[in-house]
């Protein structure tokens, strides 16, 4: 019984971590430019595909995936930062003043673009990728068995959250980002460079996506051109539940959605368990109806008469 509870708790926190990191990537950009970036899931997917040699063959050949871990991590991060910055420059910057719904649809289109690009180059079939297979083996905490990978996921998430908080609080550009997401115009009036701040936000979202993509691939061991979609969906829902525009809300929402998803899976009777996503979304619906602004609601988004 204890084993089961710990197992569920570890699963829940691990999934919550991935969703929180993904939600942060979305929330960071939304805060500054009111863009809900659906293509963020595809950043994650691209990061995963960067591990293998581009080819339509069924069997994946490792490329970056066999490099030594530090170089591998840095390469994937670098690739996704470039992808994120290029997306901003090419697709989103020309639309910076457009309605948020237009920005959102643009990100849909971008997502569609990336998915089909990968489909074209790598073919649509899922591929097995053994990234760091050693990490899947469990470690024992007394009588309790926990997969090492989950521990790593949680630790990496915590470390990233701490780093991000330090970045936002201690560095000049971090403080500027916080200022810009509260009042972009006022920040500009103080000479804060809008383009630079937005680019920084995209770079960080690329970095977060890279980390999620590595953790996710080591957990699942497979690649698919649609692998980013469920992540981004749940993370997107998490940012809304947490409260759009609030980074604390994004993290909180990520954990709420992740944990409730695992918990529903565990506690629902067998015949309802298949519908666990439905329960998660029902919970989301309920939270929105009770608190339309999300758990941490942000004042700047409310309209004045």
């Amino acid at each position: 019984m204890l084993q089961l509870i710990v197992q569920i708790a570890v699963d829940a926190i691990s999934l919550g971590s991935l969703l929180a990191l993904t939600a942060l990537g979305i929330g960071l950009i939304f805060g500054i430019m009111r863009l809900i970036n659906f293509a963020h899931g595809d950043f994650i997917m691209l990061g995963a595909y960067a591990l293998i040699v581009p080819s339509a063959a069924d069997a994946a050949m490792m490329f970056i995936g066999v490099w030594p871990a530090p170089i591998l991590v840095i390469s994937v991060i670098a690739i996704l930062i470039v992808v994120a910055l290029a997306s901003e420059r090419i697709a989103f910057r020309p639309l910076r003043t457009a309605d948020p719904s237009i920005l959102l649809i643009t990100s849909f289109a971008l997502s569609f673009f990336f998915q089909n690009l990968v489909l074209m180059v790598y073919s649509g079939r899922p591929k097995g990728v053994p990234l760091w297979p050693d990490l899947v083996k469990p470690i024992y905490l007394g009588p309790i068995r926990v997969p090492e990978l989950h521990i790593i996921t949680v630790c990496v998430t915590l470390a990233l959250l701490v780093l991000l908080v330090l970045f936002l609080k201690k560095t000049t550009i971090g403080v500027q980002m916080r200022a810009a997401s509260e009042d972009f115009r006022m920040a500009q009036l103080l000479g804060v460079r809008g383009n630079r701040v937005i680019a920084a936000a995209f770079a960080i979202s690329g970095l977060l996506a890279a980390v999620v993509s590595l953790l996710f691939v080591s957990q699942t061991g497979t690649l698919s051109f649609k692998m980013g979609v469920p992540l981004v969906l749940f993370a997107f829902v998490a940012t809304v539940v947490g409260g759009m525009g609030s980074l604390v809300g994004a993290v909180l929402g990520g954990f709420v959605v992740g944990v409730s998803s695992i918990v529903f899976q565990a506690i629902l009777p067998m015949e309802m368990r298949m519908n666990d996503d439905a329960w998660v979304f029902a919970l989301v619906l309920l939270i929105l109806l009770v608190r339309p602004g999300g758990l941490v609601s942000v004042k700047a988004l409310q309209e004045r008469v």
Partner: protein
Amino acid sequence: MDSRHITAIIRFLWTPLILSFIVLTIVLIVWASGDSVVARTITDGLIRTVLVIGLYIFIGNSGVLAFGHIAFMLIGGYAVAWLTMSPFKKSFALDLPAILADNQFPLFPSAIAAGLLPAIVAFIVGIPIMRLSGIAASIATFAVLAIFYTIYSNWDSWTFGASTLVGIPLYVNMWVALGWTVFAIFTAYLYQQTKYGLALRSSREDEVAARAAGINIPVQRLIAFVLSAFFMGIAGVLQAHFLGSLIVNGFWLGITFLSLAMLIVGGQRSLTGAVVGVIVVSTIVELLRQVEAGIQFGNFEFSLPGGFQELGLAVLMIVILIYRPWGIMGGHEVPWPFGHGKRILAGGFALAPPLPKDERK
């Protein structure tokens, strides 16, 4: 009724008349050519038109970007399968209650019933959701889709789970699809001219001012939501009877994205935009598909790698959005080309044309 009055009525109905005329013309040309492959493409396009008009009725008039409408298409499609499949074919895949399992209902009443079911669902879920605005409303509608999608994926006895349900009677051809398209065009137009449609459009323009003008926004949104769910359901019905099969997986993000893309590329704020969006996007997709298959330039054959069609569509969409953020039509309906004349208001109240300035005093 004198001729001026008739002119006024034609002017009032100008948009739906022209739009219907355009789709009719396309259908007639294809019919005359006798090409059955193209006819299937066109039928598919007409079904898409019903679908996008269904989206437009809510999104276009309310200004609320709803992501969950495909749920209503899903509900309508399966409902019509339960009603119209032969008991013999149902017995292979489904485990329905006796009244559905043992009967095969007539097509047209079944279609109506299968449109009404999602409308009822929309009414129930809409009561709480229509109070929300902006992004919260968008997500809430999406949550509805996610819930129905998950339930239908796992509801083996009614939907055959995640597998393809086959054996739905095939009766939708170009003409049936055309009939429903024209009906959808006229209904959407007449709705937006009613006081309900007008009240809802006012809330799209300015929520605060609309509330001050006595408009109960949640109620007005709910009306549009239910009406749009009906047409989404009908689109599901048409698709089921056109393909003869259904798969839950087909009612998820792909079609959500494609239908929203059509609406937004055409221009989400006008009925004309909705129809134009379907035509333009479908044409682009078709052209890209043909280029992909290879085109002959004299002796030289030119073709593009597979998947280019989707990439091209994505790039074109981004380009259109950058240059025309409110879509190709930019919110305009088909303009009346015959200058000033006596103009009739939707309320039936005629208004004389403005006199030239110097005659007024």
